[in-house]
């Protein structure tokens, strides 16, 4: 591939991810509104929020690490986008593989932990302790699921995994071949989004949005950007692993929005679990389903 083409792809992929991510945020808020019989926010609301937050006059920084933490939180996902193939663009997905991708998806939580640590707000520290515990909880089923898919496909190359599924048609989709892993993956994905009932680290009524408590202005704006990347990354990863990626942009976007709609619609019907309940639930059901799924694959 020509280097120029590669550079264009590397710029374009996060950009597309950001725009799609914003629409996903909008969808999430609209679904919440519909479930609560409200009208919901206007179309450009996620963009308004981000522009406003970056345009605030007061920008309270708590120090260098605080700044770096936010950059890490966004940067981890921006790097992850270049490893996620979309129709027509592969970026560096062929060279990276899923394992690198999983590592990159952990960086935002760690960056957030660093940044929040410097804010020295007890609510923030509790939030981050919970966020890292939650990460421990959902990463184990996630790794099992990804391992299962990679084992069945015989490769950790995401481009190849997608190509095999697309070549064989619907019957070779991950979700049809490995339904147990697909279910476990869906639960793990829901937990990784940090939405109710797994919303333990945001918990506005209890710890005042945890990690976000001291964030204002562009720092909060950065986290809003991060959220849109997060929604995009998780749903696209799921679509690539289990639903055969996308041959065209239309079916790619359709699949990713539909996949995301499942956890989001569930989320607004439930209250929140406690941390230990989350751990127990995550280490029991998705892990069990995942392990049985792997046994079938082997």
């Amino acid at each position: 591939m020509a280097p120029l083409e590669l550079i264009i792809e590397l710029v374009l992929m996060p950009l597309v991810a950001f725009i799609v991510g914003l629409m996903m945020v909008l969808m999430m808020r609209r679904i919440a509104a519909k479930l609560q019989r409200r009208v919901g926010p206007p179309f450009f609301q996620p963009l308004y929020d981000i522009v406003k937050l970056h345009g605030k006059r007061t920008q309270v920084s708590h120090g260098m690490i605080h700044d770096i933490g936010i950059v890490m939180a966004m940067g981890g996902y921006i790097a992850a986008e270049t490893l996620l193939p979309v129709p027509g663009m592969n970026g560096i997905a062929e060279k990276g593989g899923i394992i690198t991708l999983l590592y990159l998806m952990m960086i935002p939580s760690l960056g957030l932990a660093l940044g929040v640590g410097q804010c020295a707000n007890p609510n923030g520290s509790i939030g981050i302790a919970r966020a890292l515990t939650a990460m421990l909880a959902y990463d184990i089923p996630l790794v099992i699921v990804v391992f299962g898919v990679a084992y069945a496909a015989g490769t950790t190359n995401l481009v190849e995994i997608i190509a095999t599924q697309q070549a064989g048609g619907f019957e070779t989709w991950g979700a049809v071949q490995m339904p147990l892993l697909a279910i476990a993956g869906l639960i793990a994905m829901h937990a990784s989004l940090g939405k109710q009932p797994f919303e333990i680290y945001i918990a506005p009524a209890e710890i005042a949005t945890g990690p976000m408590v001291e964030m204002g202005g562009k720092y909060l704006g950065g986290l809003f950007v991060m959220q849109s990347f997060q929604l995009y990354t998780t749903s696209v990863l799921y679509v690539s692993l289990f639903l055969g990626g996308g041959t065209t942009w239309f079916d790619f976007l359709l699949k990713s929005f539909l996949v995301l709609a499942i956890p989001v619609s569930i989320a607004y019907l439930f209250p929140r679990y406690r941390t230990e309940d989350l751990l127990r639930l995550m280490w029991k059901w998705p892990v069990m389903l995942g392990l049985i799924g792997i046994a079938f694959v082997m």
Partner: protein
Amino acid sequence: MSSIKQIPVIEEKRTNPLARVFDELVRFCRSRSLFLLHYCTGCGAIELPPAMTSRFDMERLGIQPMVSPRQADILLITGYVSIKTLKRVILTYEQMGSPKYVIGICSCTVNGGMYWQSYATAKKLDEYMPVDLYIAGCMPRPEAVIEGLQQLMQRIKTGEAKGWEDYYRNYDYYLGNQQKLFGNDWQTPTDVITEAKHYDLLGEGTLGEHTALLEQHQQPLEALEMRLGHQVKEPAE
């Protein structure tokens, strides 16, 4: 309210021709995305849940509740403020990121309302902090609240809602009223005068006799002691 009208509008000097367009965009986004602070003082707060939830749905205007002052744009004072509450309100107000707006809901914030004779409430809110908008009524219905918020949005869009600048320009006046209520040694953790310098909003009313009094009594802020677990007291011998 009348004092707010008198603030001279100072245009920021920008050399970049695109800056105007950009400012316009930011102002528009500011008006379309407002985060309310969840801090409800009096009985008027009871009308906010219906304004936010399914019946009247504030989110369609881009208004949503937020939980910490750092994240919020609007401080809603929903009813009477007792003197004890007012202290917290001022602490919260000073920690919010500017541009910030204050809305006084209920008659009690306008002139004391039916608590006029009470010894424990602050009567006029705009003596203690600049109020951008009042919504009178005992208590105003959600329609009135939303109507008021829409007016505020309009004023933000045109750049009129500049109450927060008034706090810096006339800090001495507000501090004086606060001192009258809370005593001469009243001090907040926020250094308003330095902030005023930072935003280039040092006006004639920023410094005065009351800020001089503040300087006399001011104690340097100390970081809270960090420790793990409980401290066990040694029993006295």
